[in-house]
């Protein structure tokens, strides 16, 4: 190595040193350690004991593990597409000619910055089946349905109901899509006006314009929010920890990361929890890869494919 390259390296390492320390100490070594723990029986108080694949075979027979996986899948499958759709429709609406656009944009954005803990406490009260305003607002809807002979509907019990607790959390999630909407709105405003003018000349209807011009042009950002949304939803934790007291009613909102947390910090089954963490890592990796593969040909990047 020439002296000047040596100097460059020293300088570079100096500037990167905070991150190098962090990368080794807070990312790489912990990753290796948790990988090792996943093959061990470890309760903090006694030294870890190698048990091979036992954590994984035990997980396979653990009813709560599969339930937590199912609950998380349910939440992800509904919350992500619903959130994206609502965010996109709001962005389309705001992208139309309108007065007071900044006011509306602020209103739709504001819920997304409410601290999740505060939002969770608030929504417990919103969902309160006896006194919450949501059921007060739904009552008239139910009354309309009840006009049909033989039909009797009542507003759901939300967080007290094993059936409705997960949908309740999905609904709450929709309230916070403002950030995604801001991203979509920015992407919509970047679509060149000329493309719409050409479509107008061809006599395209508004919906065809959305389908054939807007969607392809904003597809990279849709893809980005899909991946980030999936990763975020698979890690859902805080809402359930606070709103449903760690997974109630029954185990209907016992989400994956909640069960992982309980294993790690309440039952001190650190090896077991590490195995869960690595399974989550693998699931996220596989899902991201699938999304990349499946959507690749639908995404339009300006100036050719890929950079």
């Amino acid at each position, binding site marked *: 190595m020439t002296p000047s390259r040596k100097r460059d390296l020293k300088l*570079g390492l100096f500037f990167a040193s905070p991150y190098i320390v962090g990368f080794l100490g807070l990312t790489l070594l912990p990753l290796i350690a948790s990988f090792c723990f996943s093959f061990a029986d470890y309760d903090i108080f006694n030294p870890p004991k190698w048990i091979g694949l036992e954590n994984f075979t035990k997980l396979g027979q653990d009813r709560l593990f599969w339930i937590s996986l199912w609950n998380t899948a349910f939440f992800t499958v509904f919350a992500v597409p619903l959130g994206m759709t609502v965010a996109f429709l709001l962005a389309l609406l705001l992208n139309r000619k309108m007065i007071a656009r900044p006011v509306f944009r602020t209103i739709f954005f504001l819920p997304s910055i409410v601290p999740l803990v*505060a939002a969770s406490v608030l929504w417990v009260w919103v969902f309160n089946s006896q*006194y919450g305003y949501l059921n007060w607002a739904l009552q008239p809807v139910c009354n309309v349905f009840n006009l049909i002979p033989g039909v009797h509907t009542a507003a759901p019990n939300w967080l007290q109901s094993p059936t409705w607790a997960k949908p309740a959390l999905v609904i709450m999630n929709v309230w916070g899509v403002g950030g995604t909407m801001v991203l979509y709105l920015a992407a919509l405003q970047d679509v060149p006006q000329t493309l719409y003018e050409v479509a107008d000349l061809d006599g395209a209807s508004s919906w065809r314009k959305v389908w054939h011009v807007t969607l392809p042009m904003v597809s990279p950002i849709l893809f980005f929010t899909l991946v980030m949304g999936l990763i975020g939803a698979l890690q859902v934790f805080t809402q359930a920890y606070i709103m449903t007291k760690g997974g109630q009613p029954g185990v209907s909102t016992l989400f994956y990361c909640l069960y992982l947390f309980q294993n790690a910090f309440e039952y001190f089954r650190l090896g077991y929890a590490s195995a869960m963490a690595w399974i989550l890592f693998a699931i996220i990796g596989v899902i991201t890869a699938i999304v990349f593969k499946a959507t690749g040909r639908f995404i339009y990047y300006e100036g050719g494919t890929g950079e």
Partner: protein
Amino acid sequence: MKRGSLLTHVMAAALSLVFLFPFVWLLASAVKPNELLKQWPPVWVFTPTLEHLRELFQPDSPFQFWQFLLNTLYVCAFTVCGNLLSSSMVAYGFARLRWPGRDLLFYAMLGTMMVPAQTMMIPIFLLFRNLGWIDTFLPLTIPTLFGNAFFIFMLRQFFLTVPKDLLDAARVDGHGEVAIWWRVVMPLSIPALAVVGLFSFLGAWNDFINPLIYLLDETRYTLSLGLAMFQGQYEAQYGRLMAASALMTCPIVILFFFAQRQFIEGIKMTGIKG
């Protein structure tokens, strides 16, 4: 000039109502007398009371707003300073210096952004436990000194836009790289630093899982942990709970109105890669 159709505005107004209603409910419940809170159908017109707020500020209140606020602000201030210093330093190394191994480390860093925090959580907990850091603020503050992959990436993108001539001129004048980072690049990057500072602040303010893991004593609770524990104990005290939630939310909303541009820019920056 076309002002847009009536339908657009009616829809926007109706949806605004839906999105705003939880806020109305929050504020209304925070000042609603106890005897009216549990009335069906909900009472919308009443004389507001400050009893819930006053109860929160009693010395024996389980939700010690001032104490929790002070703790949160301490963690936030440390996080903002730590992230700005460390992330900008590393970002400078990635953006404006050439050195062997730079790109490898940079891509490794981008790769770590995909790893769920849960995978590292347990060994990091054991590390901090061995250091005797449980029930101190150190696990919340010290990690910010090592830079944050996301902020490093954001700042690197911004630093790349600083004209090369400016840096070369400073080099010709005999300034070292540290001086160039600190006195040339940093002052030119105030807008990006403001965004990073804001998002660091929000991250620390909203963080729940780390305080939950590391803080034990009530005198060290942050607002989010304090509110969660308060909710756990006083589930049925909706008036006080809503007042406490409002207290935790208000500073963020006020911050938003002062730094709207940075909020929006920050959100857009997260999507740049897309």
